[in-house]
């Protein structure tokens, strides 16, 4: 179906966000230490570029929060996912920059300037996204399906496999 435009991205962002958080699930495995997750905040903003931010808290042996944003990269013409991870110690939240201590695919990301906030966030780099997502697209695929497919491949689950989407 080729790339989606920033207008299409913005038109579908809220719908995508609401479908996404409704379908987000924590996969229970014997190795991962979290038993449940809670959404701390979730909102869409336009500054003037539109993005959504979602923060979720993983509750278990060690509580973590993962805050991620989804925005549109005009150069690569694809959505991008950036995130930060905090570790809780009581009421103290400590930002992590080394993901080795979490069981995740931390090697896939690097700290980079956030496209909207201009501060260091982990970034799942958008190179090759366009081609890879396109492999899964048919001529009639809609924007919403495109965004859902993209998220599975280049969104949070690519780094945190314990978080998966189960769309209904």
């Amino acid at each position, binding site marked *: 179906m080729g790339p989606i435009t920033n207008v299409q991205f913005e038109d579908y962002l809220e719908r995508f966000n609401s479908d996404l958080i409704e379908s987000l699930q924590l996969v229970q495995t014997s190795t991962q230490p979290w038993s449940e997750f809670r959404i701390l*905040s979730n*909102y869409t903003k*336009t500054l003037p570029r539109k993005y959504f931010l979602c923060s979720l808290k993983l509750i278990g042996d060690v509580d973590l929060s993962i805050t991620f944003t989804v925005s549109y990269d005009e150069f690569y013409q694809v959505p991008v996912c950036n995130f930060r991870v905090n570790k809780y110690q009581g*009421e*103290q939240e400590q930002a992590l920059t080394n993901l080795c201590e979490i069981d995740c695919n931390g090697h896939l990301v690097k700290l980079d300037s956030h496209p909207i906030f201009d501060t260091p966030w982990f970034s799942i780099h958008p190179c090759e996204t366009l081609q890879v997502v396109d492999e899964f697209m048919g001529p009639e695929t809609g924007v919403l399906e495109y965004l859902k497919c993209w998220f599975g491949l280049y969104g949070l689950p690519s780094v945190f496999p314990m978080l998966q989407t189960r769309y209904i």
Partner: protein
Amino acid sequence: MATNLETAKPQKFTPLSSFVESSFFTKLSQLKLDEFKLDASKRTLNGFTIHPTKLNKFNDVPLINLDHESFSGTSQDNANVVLEGLIYNVNTIEEFKLIDKQALLREWGEATHASMFENTSLDYRKFNQFYVLSFSDLKKYKFYYWVAYPTFSSKWTATRQNTAKEEYIRLVESHIASEPYTQMLQLIEGELVSNISKKSSHFVFIDTCLSKDKIPGIQLKNYLFFLGHHGFQEVDVLVYRNDGSSFEVHLQVGEPITNNYKVTGWERTGQGKLGPKLADLGLLIDPTQLAEQAVELNLKLMKWRIAPELDLEIIKNQKVLLLGAGTLGSYVARALMGWGVRQITFVDNGRISYSNPVRQPLFSFNDCFSDNGQGQYKAIRAAEALKEIFPGVKARGVNLEVPMIGHSVTDETKDKSNFDTLSSLFDEHDAVFLLMDSRESRWLPTVLGNAKDKIVLNAALGFDSYLVMRHGNQTQKLGCYYCNDVVAPNDSLSDRTLDQMCTVTRPGGALIASSLAVELFVSILQHEDKQNAEHLSKSKFGEVPHQIRGFLNNFQQHKLFAPSYKYCSACSSQVTQKYQEDGWDFVKKCLNDTSYLEEICGLTKVQEEADLASEDLLKDLEIDDEDEEWLS
């Protein structure tokens, strides 16, 4: 359908939570440093909450969001509702701890109270004010904060709960869709209004959360207090929710509301306790820590696909000694830093001159005349400059004259001390780069490098040519800088014109040679045999050639190999052995008299044998009488 509550219950409310996105703290730290400084006066702040039409099942508590826009005026859009607040950022942690929280909340509550009672309007901005008490530790980038949302108690009890009527729901939805955001409205004769009057006791609260047990958001508490104060004894409140769970509750006030009100509102922690929160963002804001991580991460990207077996740790842990802090030294240091080398020591005895900065990237114009007009010492300034570029580097400058062969010892105390310092520096480092501007200054480091089995890299420049090589050792017999010489190095600086003494080279040659020297160094480190690697062998990272010679006149480059020379004046086993036996005494004799060195290494004998061979050859070529006749 009405549900008569068995017993009248005090109305409960879902308390509010704050969500402070980390860019809020980044902005706060910038403002504190650049604008607020020591001014701890209270400042206006904007928060936002999600628009009631956008609430979903996860919005089980009312939320105030703060982000980087909160200081500059959050933009209102159809997804969010802006709330007004104040931040009180105190200057010390002691102040944060000791401040009377109850009195502060009372003060803030009075402000909200005054705002609420300005008139009879149900304007949500006046009922929703929030406050933040904070302390920003800008050394460690730790942020202590506590959010308060002042509320006023009035004893309302719920006696009845009904499902909301469809016609009212449609009315509310129509109002939400067409009118600016409101939170509380009065329903008078089928119309929704935001100025209260006694014409009706029917109200609509557009809920701020979708709590599962139908407990409305805390904001309703302030509206009820307001209504009670205005004489309402009984009200019906339709609590509107976008998920179809709207309900209507009949409330009665228990006791008259007076001006002697109680203020509550400090946010409780996740464990339900009263206390502040702490966000530690050191790793994400501290520029030094960010640089450390960024440098490492950038290198680690090589391991993703291109060179997965690249050993970055061995590079990072190398202690590298750079002899010479000039053009070559500057570029070598930068390339080493690019590779993540963290421990770099410069040795040089020169000061920065006006010709240096354009070719030597660690120096600038001011360095040429600072230090009382003399120019800074090169080694010292180069180390400082490295730290300015990347604070994570452990750079050190040693102002030291390397004893040079052919330059006699005139002040033994000084020369011996220089020798001892240099020798100790070799012991402290893993690798040494020879980057000086004269041939004879490389002799002693070559001897030391061989004797102490260090990785020795050598870069030298001609006018339009360059040489980069690694020295061998007693195991891997690769030639050193002096292995092709048939005489010991001597004083090349005396009786020379300026163009002969200075490094008159094509400027780009130094960059190329420096980069090649560092890349060769990295390749050696990646080889399992390190400096003992055979010159034709390979590691997964590639080749480890002995010498690279390049020519800029025709832009050619060659890899060469020359075995070590058994009579070499610097790396032959006789020299190494003599140095190990006599140390400084041997060095001193060599400095004073190069013929002594030639004697030790065997070059004298070679010269004698060459002379004899030459004589023999001439004898063989002598013309006898017979030949003379023939020739004539």
